[in-house]
């Protein structure tokens, strides 16, 4: 079940490398560099230094007692990636890739961003390591995540609003890839999720696996065993794969929660694994939201970070092999969980992570009090307060009760 390193970039039938020929040498160079450095003691030492001293690892595994009581079932633990520098798990990956880019002697870094968290984490890594960063962001996302645009600018990174297509994450990735094709010899593309052509999905997973590794160690101390269940939200799926991968061989049930938007049946959602079909996008074969002729669908989610019509290929593999159960939580449930966690625990979760919290509450109720659930709280929700405010004022009629 566990695929340590995918042969030819394949997780089962998924993944691979469907890219314009111009990028082939760049992707091969990247893979060679990654294989060279991933076990290199100096590289590991430097990454460890930045993860601990700069980003704030390890993150706590917090027993959410109030939320557990509220749900009335299994114990709920929160893996506090929201406490990392920048406010999300994204920095685990950007520090790793930025250190790699430096060793590859690439000074110009480009990245895409949805909610802006990966953009901010890229900007931080670039600033700390003396690299030049430029970030592509869908125009629609720059409007709903203004705070993060401002933060990136503060950190010295230029933000390019993308006005093509749906003006969200997928179009930001398209534009970043076009930039990479044009400036391939000087530029490092720092992809933010476990998506794209090989070796990105495996590399991003490896950098994010620090989440699951820590959960494993921390749960052994707290409960003397691995968690009975883990829950993580899935957009592209980087925090989820980082949570799942180290626990794949353990006796742990795994749940990936996608954005159900206005409901999977409504057609306005981003639940790729729940409601999608196989296809090729952004260099990979994976589940996609698309029409019957292969045109990529418009997606919807209240959380910009989950608003993506594709998903990491390893998730597609884990779905088909039934190791992980994927389900969807809609906008309304996510907002409710956002409010609940804020009220009961004093923790304002990102809207992305709120999907996982909502699912965990439902799951806890079906489990016994002696069992445990770990929810990866991938980010904090300061960036989302305006969006939640807008949602609540639009939905005053069917008032949300907490």
């Amino acid at each position, binding site marked *: 079940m566990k695929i340590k390193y995918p042969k030819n970039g394949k997780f089962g039938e998924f993944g691979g490398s*469907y890219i*314009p020929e111009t990028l*082939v*040498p760049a992707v091969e160079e990247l893979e060679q560099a990654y294989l060279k450095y991933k076990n290199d003691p100096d590289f590991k030492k430097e990454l460890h230094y930045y993860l601990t001293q700069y980003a704030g690892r390890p993150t706590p595994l917090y027993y959410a007692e109030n939320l557990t009581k509220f749900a009335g079932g299994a114990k709920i633990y929160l893996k506090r990636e929201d406490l990392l520098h920048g406010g999300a798990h994204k920095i685990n990956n950007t520090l790793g890739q930025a250190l790699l880019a430096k060793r590859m002697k690439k000074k110009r870094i480009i990245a895409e961003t949805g909610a802006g968290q990966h953009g901010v984490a890229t900007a931080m890594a670039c600033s700390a390591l003396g690299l030049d960063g430029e970030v592509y962001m869908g125009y629609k996302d720059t409007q709903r995540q203004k705070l993060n645009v401002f933060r990136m600018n503060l950190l010295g990174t230029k933000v390019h609003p993308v006005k*093509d297509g749906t003006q969200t994450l997928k179009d930001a990735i398209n534009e970043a890839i076009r930039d990479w094709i*044009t400036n391939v*010899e000087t530029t490092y593309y720092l992809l933010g999720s476990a998506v794209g052509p090989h070796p990105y999905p495996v590399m991003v997973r490896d950098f994010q696996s620090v989440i699951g590794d820590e959960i494993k160690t921390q749960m052994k101390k707290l409960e003397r065993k691995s968690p009975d269940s883990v829950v993580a939200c899935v957009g592209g799926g980087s925090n989820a794969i980082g949570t799942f991968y180290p626990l794949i061989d353990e006796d742990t049930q795994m749940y990936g929660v996608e954005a159900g938007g206005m409901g999977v049946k409504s057609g306005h959602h981003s639940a790729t694994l729940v409601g999608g079909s196989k296809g090729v996008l*952004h260099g990979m074969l994976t589940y996609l939201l698309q029409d019957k002729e292969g*045109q990529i669908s418009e997606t919807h989610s209240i959380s910009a970070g989950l608003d993506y019509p594709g998903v990491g290929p390893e998730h597609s593999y884990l779905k088909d092999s039934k190791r992980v159960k994927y389900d969807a939580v809609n906008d309304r449930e996510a907002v409710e969980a956002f409010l609940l966690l804020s009220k009961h625990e004093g923790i304002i979760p990102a809207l992305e992570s709120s999907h996982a919290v909502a699912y965990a509450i439902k799951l806890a109720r079906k489990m016994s009090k002696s069992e445990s659930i770990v929810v990866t709280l991938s980010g904090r929700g300061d960036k989302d307060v305006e969006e939640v405010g807008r949602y609540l004022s639009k939905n005053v009629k069917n008032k949300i009760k907490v």
Partner: protein
Amino acid sequence: MSKIKSKFKVLRSKNQKALIAYVMAGFPTEKDTISAIRGLVKGGADIIELGMPFSDPLADGPVIQHAGFTSLQKGMNFSRFLELVKKIRKETDIPLVLMTYTNILYRQGYDRFISTVKKAGIDGLILPDMSIGESHEFLKAAKKNGVDTIFLISPNTEPDRIKKISDASSGFLYLVSVFGTTGGQQKFQGYTTHAIKNAKKILASKIPLGVGFGVSTPEQAKLMISSGADAIIVGSAFLRLIEGTPSNKIEEKIRSFTSSLKKTTLPE
């Protein structure tokens, strides 16, 4: 022998190079595409590439992106694309190459897609995101249906890989002239002509070499040909011309621009 192959054979016997023209199906309307193709044929184009729009064209620059989105917005889909090809086939037997992205084929299944477009009159396929390493099923289906597979190489493609890609290619091999997406290149640098010479050395006379991405003027076409290109490929420049011309003038405008490009492919 495939239609594309025999076209190159005829051109060789006349000591000519090929002019390959790209237009987006249904941009800005299907009627305009037909007019443009009439102009291309009359102006002396040798092969036509017909674009089938995809929602996420990541190898394309602004001009082709815009054309694709417009075409999709106006309702272009697979059945309308097939109708268009059939209409074109009533007027001309010029070799027709379909250019789109992998997912459009993958979604229907390679074999089903390719056999359907072949019946409508398509002779070859170009998929800018189909890497050679992922092409096994695609190649099998194309071979079975007798459709040429035109792969792309780039100025940074290693010699061994050029050989491997050319082995899988039929009809011609497509050299991307620049680091960049499709569309207007103001000035070509030395690496482009170097890449053409280098590729020609490796290919010898095994398969014709077409050069495109940003070739938009007769002067640029001449430069590619004098460096060794067997064909020049022009796309965005045609789309810009189509967009800026009233429908009733498209055929004539395209004919005259095509003929100015075609002249560069004739023996001096």
